[in-house]
Every structure is written in C-alpha cells, then in structure tokens.
C-alpha cells in the first residue's frame, strides 16, 4: 500500500501496547502529514532516548543518568527503600507522590511458569543496599497477586536476619469504592487487615 519505510514504521508502531495495525497506520498517517511539528521532534526524541537512556546501577530504574534522578536527589529520605516489581510501578507511586524515599526495581516477580527465580531478579542489589547503615526501612510494594505476594514473602524471609523494619502495602477497599461492587478477594483482604 505504501513504501517499505512507511510499512516498517506501521509494523513497529503496531507492536506497542494499545496500538494495533489499524491504529498504527492512522498514527503514521498523522506523522507523515505533520512532518515538521510531529515527525521530526518525535524522531529526535527517540534518537535522544536511544542514546541516553540507561538502567540505574543503584536502583534498577531507567533514566538518562546513572545513578538516576531519584537516587541522587538529596531531598529524598535515604533511610527508606520502596521495593517495586517494575519501572511502571515506580512511575505510578511517583505520580501519586506517595513515597518520599528511594526505590528498588526488581525487574519482575518470582514466577515458576516463566522460569523467573530469585537469580533472575535484582535481589542481590537489594541485599547490598540493605546493608548500608543509613537504610532503616524497606517498604515492599509488589502487586497484590499470588506471584507478587510470593515475591514479597521471599524478600521478607531474605531480610529476616537484618535489623531493618520491613513493611508491606495494605490491601483493601479503594478510595471511592463501594463494598457492593468489590470483588470477594479485596473484601477478604480488607477485612483481614482492618484496624
């Protein structure tokens, strides 16, 4: 239908989450129509990201510097480390401005099905960070799924011999949630962790 370069662009855009071949084609059409205002800046931004994005050697998040912006921010509480599964979870907590400490990205969670064991996750990095004297609390913010909670229990066992305070996110009724519409699992978790 179009030249190979355009077809390639459609093909790669269609691989992104939320985009299928049709929506990718529409996006490409927009890019072609608005070359100067959209295509050129996007191309520059992609090139810059490709050249500069690194994985933080301390926490495992992605940023354009190493150590990342969060790890080098002096206003953050270095005594608290929040452990998350993926960079997306870190971004969610940052969006909510819910955490003033630092983070540690595991890069996934324990999953027998996908062959992900502790060796495949950034556990050794967490252990060495926990040994630093300034660290006093670890917040485990893994997902409330069977695999996420299995990972949380594993980390708690791993840090059992340290003097650190280890806490986990609460599970329960979401803000604005009505009991009648909640799933049974959330209700059970909420009732179990009532205070």
């Amino acid at each position, binding site marked *: 239908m179009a030249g190979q370069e355009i077809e390639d662009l459609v093909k790669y855009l269609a691989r992104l989450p939320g985009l299928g071949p049709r929506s990718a084609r529409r996006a490409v059409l927009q890019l072609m129509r608005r070359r100067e205002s959209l295509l050129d800046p996007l191309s520059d931004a992609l090139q810059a990201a490709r050249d500069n994005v690194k994985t933080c050697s301390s926490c495992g998040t992605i940023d354009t510097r190493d150590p990342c912006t969060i790890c080098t921010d002096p206003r953050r509480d270095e005594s608290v480390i929040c452990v998350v599964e993926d960079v997306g979870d870190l971004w969610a907590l940052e969006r909510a401005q819910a955490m003033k400490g630092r983070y540690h990205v595991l890069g996934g969670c324990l999953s027998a099905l996908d062959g992900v064991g502790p060796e495949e996750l950034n556990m050794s990095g967490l252990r060495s960070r926990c040994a630093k004297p300034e660290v006093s609390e670890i917040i485990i913010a893994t997902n409330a799924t069977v695999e996420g909670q299995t990972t949380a229990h594993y980390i708690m066992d791993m840090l059992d011999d340290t003097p650190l305070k280890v806490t986990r996110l609460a599970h329960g009724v979401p803000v604005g949630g009505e009991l009648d519409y909640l*799933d*049974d699992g959330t209700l059970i978790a909420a009732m179990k962790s009532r205070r």
Partner: protein
Amino acid sequence: MQWTADALIIDCRPHGESSAIIDVFSRQHGRYMGLVRGGNSRRLRPILQPGNMAQVTWRARLSEHLGTMTLDAGRAYAAEALSDPLLLSGVSSMCAMLQVTSERQAHPRLYDTVMVLLEELGEAEVWLPLLVRFEMALLEEVGFGLDLSCCAATGVTTELTHVSPRSGRAVSLTAAQPYLDQLFDLPNFLLNAQAEAPLEEILAGFTLTGHFLERRVYLPIQLVLPPARQRLIDNIRRLLKN
C-alpha cells in the same frame, strides 16, 4: 460444544494485551484450558488468581479447539492466603502440581481431596496433613500410588513404619531393620486419619511424596518439582525452628 462447572483456577497467563489463557480444574471435566477475553482487565484479574474458585463456562465450535471461557467469581481462596506465606506457598504448590494431571480427563477423587483441603485452609494442623494426602492422591491418579496396606517383605499389616523408595510399598519395623538408612519414614497420620500430625511427620510425608513425584512424575516429563513446594517446605522448617 459447551459446559458449565465449578472449577479451581490453577494457572493464568496473559495472552496478547487484554486476554488471558487460563487452566482450570473441575470435578466433571478435569483440567481444561481456555481463552478468557478481557482476562487482563482490572475486573477479571482478581478472579483469575491461581487458587480461586469460579463457575466456568467453556465454549468451542469443535471439542479439539482451545475454546473460550467466561467466569463468575466463586470463593477467593487466593485472597485468603495472600498474607500468610505458609498458606500461599501451600495453595501455589497445590495449583502447580495439578498441572501434571492429564488434560480433559476427570479426576473426581482428586478434585474432592482438593475441595476438602481448601475448606480447611487456615487450620494448619488440618490442611498441612491434607496437603500430604493430596500429593498421595495425585500420585495415585497419575498411576503411581503408594501401597501402604501391608508390609512388602512380610505381608503383615501392623507396625508399618517405613516405605521402600523403589516399590513405594510399606515396610514393617522388623523387616526394615537392616535397611533403615535406605528407607523412608512412614508418618503415622498417613495410616491413621485420626492421628496427630506434628510438623516433623509432615516434613517426612513431603519427603516421601516428593521422592515419588520427582522420580515417577516430573523427571519422565523433564520437569522439576514446583518451586512453590520447596518454599512450603522451607516455611515448615522455619516454623519448626521457631
């Protein structure tokens, strides 16, 4: 083709952006897989956690198709287990081990064992022995059941204290004497349902079933025992130490 049944969700993996392929275990149909449209959605993800019960409807044009599944949430056993490492590893281990049962073949006795176990979750002194019994039942269902009815050497039915690692048959204390270091201990609660099951005996039970599951079920299909099972055993050892 269509059926509806209560089923235990034993596995769920994402398929594409929004769907999921799940593995369920029901009394009438055994282990069945199917595609759940919207299985990755915020509404369905809590229901599709391994260990939860659901009323499942499976539909396909031909029986050999993967088919699609729709679900109504049942009891959320996974949510009940999430906060307890021992329970969570127990439920995860059970779900992982059910995946060795043959697909689309009913195992009603095994299903009943699973249901009794799930009903007793929370009472560690009850569900842990039941989990060992579940593994015994699983061995039996896949054709490698242990014979604990009489001594393999002498035929006596009393004083059965050990199990042969080769034949999977019970051995009496007298016959076991020359081979004590080569035989497995036979926990008393496996012979007498009313007997108490201390944690040491439960560990002995898992050692016994683990040996036969590994040698006779997992190794021939080039798999290893589920990591969740090892975590469960580690958790029991930790309990014993404390």
